[in-house]
């Protein structure tokens, strides 16, 4: 059966016009248009470009949510097996449009996408995790060179074949780690790598060290006696029985629990869900992880304004940075709405 492909391009590559036509609204045309002709040749009998969706760069970027919806619903009508976006080369707005369409196609239609961009196109960093983006040259002079690997990758994806490494396939690494079995065990690979490093020969690390965000500390509290303080913890402090079933490792969720009527944590009302440290001492007295008792005393003594009526808890054990960032965004939003002035973050 022929693989059905829908192609997304901008007004320029559709031959509608340059910047003066950049407000062109989404339209769909049957069959291949512009660079689609080159893809058609590359696909031969195996795949067919059934439709091309065209959208102006300015219209797309200024009305992103609406434009994405329009483009996707046009694509949906053609029941594609795969979508190709661009190539956008180093055109920034076109790259972002390609990326946004690609991400939505993957999420909404659940089919693979191949895009093409120059590595410095802003669309790359924004969308490389969602779509396979073939590395292209800066300008459309590199069209033919871009089409070959894009078409090859598209066919592989549509056939459901296993993909090679980014270098082999020509796509920009998506920052995704994928397991596979190597030919030699890890210890042997380490010895080989060390010998090369000692000899000054070339070697390739299997994991380039990560780069982390730096968070600037917030300004100091002016008057702690009036401040509303919240407790947030990655040490897994939860009500007895772990009602939300927060995982002991690799947490996918956080919990929000009421501190109303609670002055002290004890084995009868609380426990830790954390699987990464000795839980014995935490379970004996969970104030060791979440200092409710001390804060209540300080609240009574007027040393702090008040203790926020909820605590938030998750398990910071093998929990991915992506999940941690999501929890933090959601928790911070609620704390802001509740007028919390400061947070004591406890970990273990």
């Amino acid at each position, binding site marked *: 059966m022929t693989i059905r492909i829908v192609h997304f391009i901008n007004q320029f590559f559709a031959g509608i016009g340059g910047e003066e036509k950049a407000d062109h609204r989404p339209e769909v045309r049957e069959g291949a248009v512009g660079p689609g002709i080159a893809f058609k040749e590359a696909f031969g009998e195996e795949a067919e470009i059934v439709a091309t969706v065209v959208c102006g760069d300015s219209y797309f970027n200024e009305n992103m949510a609406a434009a994405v919806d329009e483009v996707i619903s046009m694509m949906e009508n053609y029941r594609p097996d795969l979508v190709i976006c661009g190539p956008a080369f180093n055109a920034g707005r076109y790259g972002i449009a390609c990326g946004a369409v690609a991400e939505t196609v993957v999420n909404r239609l659940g089919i693979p996408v191949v895009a093409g961009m120059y590595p410095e196109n802003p669309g790359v960093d924004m969308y490389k*995790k969602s779509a396979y983006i073939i590395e292209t040259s800066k300008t459309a002079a590199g069209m033919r060179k871009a089409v070959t690997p894009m078409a090859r990758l598209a066919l592989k994806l549509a056939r459901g074949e296993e*993909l090679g*490494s*980014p270098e082999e396939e020509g796509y920009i*690494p*998506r*920052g*995704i*780690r*994928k*397991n*596979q*079995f*190597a*030919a*030699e*065990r*890890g*210890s*042997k*690979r*380490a*010895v080989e*790598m*060390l*010998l090369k*490093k*000692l000899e000054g020969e070339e*070697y390739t*690390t*299997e*994991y*380039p*060290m*990560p*780069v*982390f965000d730096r968070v600037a500390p917030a300004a100091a509290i002016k008057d702690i006696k009036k401040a509303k303080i919240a407790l947030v913890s990655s040490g897994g402090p939860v009500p007895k029985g772990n009602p939300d*079933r927060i*995982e*002991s*490792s*690799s947490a*996918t969720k956080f919990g929000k629990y009421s501190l109303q009527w609670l002055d002290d944590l004890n084995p009868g009302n609380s426990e830790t869900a954390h*699987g*990464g*440290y*000795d*839980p*014995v001492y935490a379970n004996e007295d969970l104030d060791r992880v979440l200092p409710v008792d001390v804060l209540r005393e300080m609240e009574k003594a007027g040393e702090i304004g008040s203790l926020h009526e909820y605590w938030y808890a998750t398990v*910071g*054990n*093998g929990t*991915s*940075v*992506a*999940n941690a960032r999501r929890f933090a965004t959601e928790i911070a939003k609620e704390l802001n709405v509740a007028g919390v002035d400061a947070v004591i973050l406890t970990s273990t």
Partner: protein
Amino acid sequence: MRLEVGNILIKDIQFGERTEVKKGVLFINKDELAQVTGADDLIASVEVYLAKPGEEIRIIPVKDVIEPRIKVSGKGGVFPGLISKVDTVGEGRTHVLKGAAVVTTGKIVGFQEGLIDMTGPGAEYTPFSKTMNVVLKVDPVEGLHQHEHERVVRLAGLRAAEYLGRAGQSVEPDHIEVYETKPLPEQVKEYPDLPKVVYVYMLITQGLLHDSFFYGVDAKQIVPTFIYPTEVMDGAVVSGNCVSACDKNLTYIHQNNPVIQDLYERHGKDLNFIGCVITNENVTLADKERSSNMTAKLVEFLGADGVIITEEGFGNPDTDMVMLCYKIEEKGIKTVLITNEYAGRDGASQSLADSTEKGDAVVSTGNSNEIIKLPPMKTVIGYPEVADIIAGGSDGSLAEDGSITAEIQVIIGATNEMGYGLLTAKAR
């Protein structure tokens, strides 16, 4: 120090009247083994099972895996300081029932225990689907504290391994491996033109349920020290931890430390393996600073040109590994690190909790968060319901049909950080 390791190849295990090895078959007197294993007032019951490669068996939760070994000549006995006197081991001759393993299971001690599948997709990830396993389900008396529970099961497994190992004492081994590292000045002189390599051997020591033992000492209490590589082959290092199944260094893997084996493989040819420095992974900053400082100093003191550093565990211990890497590289000594990754289920997050630019040579043993579906098995030894609460599992991991959907973190040895397995992770 020179050690001959005599491997007696075990092709099958069966229950029999006497515990003995005959023509590559290990016969086990079940009652006697149960008696030796259960020789502790704090143990209520011991059940013995056999699990062989290819059988539809799941063992869950697994506490430790131990290789049956016995000293034939040379000082001391196996697992010194725990079930033998604290003589210095690693010399003379040791016999191994190669292909057999003791697996301890029972009621869960801590969250971080895992499973072994003897067949199916999960079997590919664990080295212990390929061994003939003598499975001991050890349950303690009621009301035992977690800390004591861990110790009781740990010692029971060691006693069982020694008991089985004894069956190989006077059996002629199928092949003998010889390992030797000499006192430092002699060892340096022996291969003066080869780069001197030290193995920096990190032991998890984060507190109870995350501890390792060195000649019976809780390794939290050691300062880094220098050892001959052969000492661990006689059980000088024992796992006492319930850290995540995928990256805990089981006692079996300490006994068969693959870094030590692979360094010996090139010893005298491409490198001069002058010894190991063991260090710990304590939880306070002062301890981390002290241990990494001392390790870097010892490595320099020994005159190493290069080191391999292996981690145990993840997250907090990443900081120990990064400190070691940074401080050793600062001294102009080249490092290679072996670690696993926690990149999230989608593989899109940073894999380590700490970082240094000097860590430019890393061997990855795979992303522990990757999801796997393990089909139901005909037989489950242990307590399958813990699949929902162990590290890497989540609420609903265990389905009604007995299948388990969880991270590979739940599989014993899946991403072992001594590089025991083939798994790695690639950029995609």
